[in-house]
C-alpha cells in the first residue's frame, strides 16, 4: 500500500521535474554566478580578486550609471504610458459594434508590429528616422520643419526616436489584452446605463474602465517589467549613443561586460537592476498569490 503511494508521488513529480530542473539549473545557478562575480575585481581579467562590495560602491560613483538610470526610467515610463494609451485607443475602436469578421481582420493586422524582431523593427525605424528618411520628408514637405532632423544622431531627440519605435512594436499586446477585457463586460450593463441617460464618456469612465481595472494593472506591470529590461532595440538603433543620450542600464551592462570585460562592475549594475525589477514585481506577485489562494 505504502509502496503504491510512493510510486504515485514519484509519477506526479515526474511531470514537473524536467521543466523545473531546467528552470532552476538555468536561472538559479547563473544568478548565483552573477552575485559571486559582482564581489570580484576584474581589472586584471585573468585573475579576478575578491573585493567585497567595492563594485556596488563604484557603481554609485559612476556618472554614466546615473545617466543610464535616468534614461532607463524616462524610456520605461514614457514607453509604457504611450503603449497603454495607444493600446486603449485601438481597443476602444475595435470594441465598437462592428461586424465580427471586420473586427478580427483589423485586430490581426494591427498585431503585425508585435510579431517583428527588434532587429527588423530597429532597422525600419533607423531608416524612417534618418536625415533624408520618410519622416523628415513628410515633415519638410508639409512645412512643419524647414530641414530634416537627424533624429537618432541628435542628443536631444534620440531617446524619443527609440521610444517611438518601442511603442509601435509594443502597443498591440496591450491592445489585445484590453480588448479581451472589454469584451467580458456584459452588454446589458452598458445598455442599462444608456437607458438611465449616462453619456458616452460617463459610461466609459464609470462602467467600462472600472471593469477592466484588474487587467489594466496586470498589463501595465508586465509592460513596465518588459520595457525596463529592453536591450536589443536600443542596441540596434543607437548603441546607446549619441554621447550616452540613449544609454540605458542594460546596454551599459552589456558594454561594461563584453567590451570592457569588467564583469564585476557589470554584474553589480545588473544586480541593482534585478532589485529594481523586484520592486515592480511585488505588486504583480501579490495579485498572483491572491489568485493562487
Amino acid at each position, binding site marked *: 500500500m505504502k509502496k503504491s503511494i510512493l510510486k504515485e508521488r514519484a509519477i506526479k513529480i515526474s511531470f514537473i521535474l524536467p521543466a523545473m530542473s531546467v528552470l532552476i539549473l538555468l536561472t538559479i545557478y547563473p544568478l548565483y554566478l*552573477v552575485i559571486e562575480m559582482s564581489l570580484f575585481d576584474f581589472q586584471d581579467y585573468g585573475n579576478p580578486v575578491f573585493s567585497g562590495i567595492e563594485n556596488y560602491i563604484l557603481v554609485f560613483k559612476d556618472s554614466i550609471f546615473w545617466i543610464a538610470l535616468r534614461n532607463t526610467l524616462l524610456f520605461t515610463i514614457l514607453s509604457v504610458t504611450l503603449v497603454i494609451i495607444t493600446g486603449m485607443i485601438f481597443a476602444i475602436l475595435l470594441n465598437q*459594434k462592428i461586424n465580427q469578421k471586420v473586427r478580427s481582420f483589423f485586430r490581426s493586422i494591427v498585431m503585425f*508590429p508585435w510579431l517583428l*524582431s527588434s*532587429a527588423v523593427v530597429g*532597422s525600419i525605424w533607423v531608416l524612417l528616422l534618418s536625415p533624408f528618411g520618410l519622416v523628415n520628408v513628410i515633415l519638410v514637405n508639409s512645412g512643419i520643419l524647414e530641414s530634416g532632423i537627424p533624429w537618432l544622431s541628435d542628443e536631444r531627440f534620440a531617446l524619443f526616436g527609440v521610444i517611438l519605435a518601442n511603442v509601435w512594436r509594443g502597443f498591440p499586446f496591450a491592445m489585445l489584452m484590453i480588448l479581451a477585457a472589454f469584451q467580458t463586460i456584459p452588454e446589458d450593463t452598458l445598455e442599462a446605463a444608456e437607458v438611465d441617460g449616462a453619456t458616452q464618456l460617463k459610461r466609459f469612465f464609470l462602467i467600462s474602465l472600472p471593469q477592466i481595472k484588474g*487587467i489594466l494593472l496586470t498589463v501595465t506591470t508586465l509592460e513596465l*517589467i518588459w520595457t525596463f529590461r529592453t536591450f536589443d532595440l536600443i542596441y540596434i538603433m543607437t548603441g546607446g549613443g549619441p554621447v550616452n543620450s540613449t544609454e540605458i*542600464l542594460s546596454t551599459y551592462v552589456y558594454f561594461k561586460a563584453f567590451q570592457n570585460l569588467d564583469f564585476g562592475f557589470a554584474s553589480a549594475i545588473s544586480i541593482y537592476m534585478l532589485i529594481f*525589477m523586484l520592486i515592480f514585481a511585488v505588486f504583480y506577485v501579490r495579485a498572483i498569490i491572491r489568485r493562487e489562494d
Partner: protein
Amino acid sequence: MKLKPLSIYVCLTLGTLLILSPIIWMFLISIRDNVDVFRLPLQIIPDEPNIQAYIQIFNNSDMFQLFINSYIIALSVTCICVLFAALAGFGLSRFSYKGKKYLVIYTLLTQMFPMVLLAIPYFLVISSLGLYNSYIALIIAYTSFALPFAILMMRDFMNSIPRELDDAAKIDGCGLYRTFFSVILPPSLPGLIAMAIYTFILAWNEYLFAIVLTQNNNARPLTVGIGMLMGEFTTEWNQLMALSILGSLPLIIVFLFIQRYFLQGLTSGSVK
C-alpha cells in the same frame, strides 16, 4: 464609447494604415535600387520596381545559412518547450506539491530577470563548456526564458479542462501518463498551439544572447545577420529591408493561419 458606424470604419482604416505604414514602407524600399532609397524628391512608389534585392539575397549562401540556423534553433526550442511545459502545466494544474505556490511565484519571477544579467554567466559557462558558437548554446538559453511563460500558459489552459475527464479516465483504469496523453492533451491542443507560436516567435526574434553566444555563420541566427547588415559602412537598405521581410514572413504566415488559437491562448490565462 460608441461612435457612428461609418466614422468607426474610417477611424479604424486610417489608424491601421498609420500603424502598418512602416511595414508598407519596408516593402516599398525592398523593391527599388539602393541608389533610389534617399533620392530626392522621394518616390513613394518606385518608378522601376524590381526584385534585385531579393535575388541578391537568394544568391548569397551566407544569408541562406542564417535562415537555416534560425529555423533549427527556433524549432528545437519550440519542441523542448512544448514537451516540458505541457507536462509541467498538467502537473501544476492537477496535483498539489509541497511549496507549489512558491514554485509558481518563482516561475513568474524568472520572467522578470533582466536579460543582460543572465547573459554574463551564460557567456562564461557556455564558453567553459566548449559550446560557444553552437546551436546548443542558443537552444539552452532560449529554452530557459521561454519556458516560464509557457508553463504558466499551459497550466492556465489545463485548469480550464474539466476534471471530470480525469476522473472518468481513472475509473477506466488509465494511469496518469495515459490520462495525460490520451485524455488531457487532445483538448489542450489550442493552448499548445498558442504556446508553441509564442515560443517560436520569441526564439526566432531574440537578439542579445545571439550576439553574446555566437561568433560566425555556423550558429548565428537571422536577427544578428540583419543587425550586421546595418552596421556596415554603406548600408544596402534595399537588401536589408528585403531580408527583414523574408525574415518576418514565416512569423506572419504562421500567425495568420492559427491566430484564433493564439489570441485565445494568450488572453485566456490573464483575463479573469
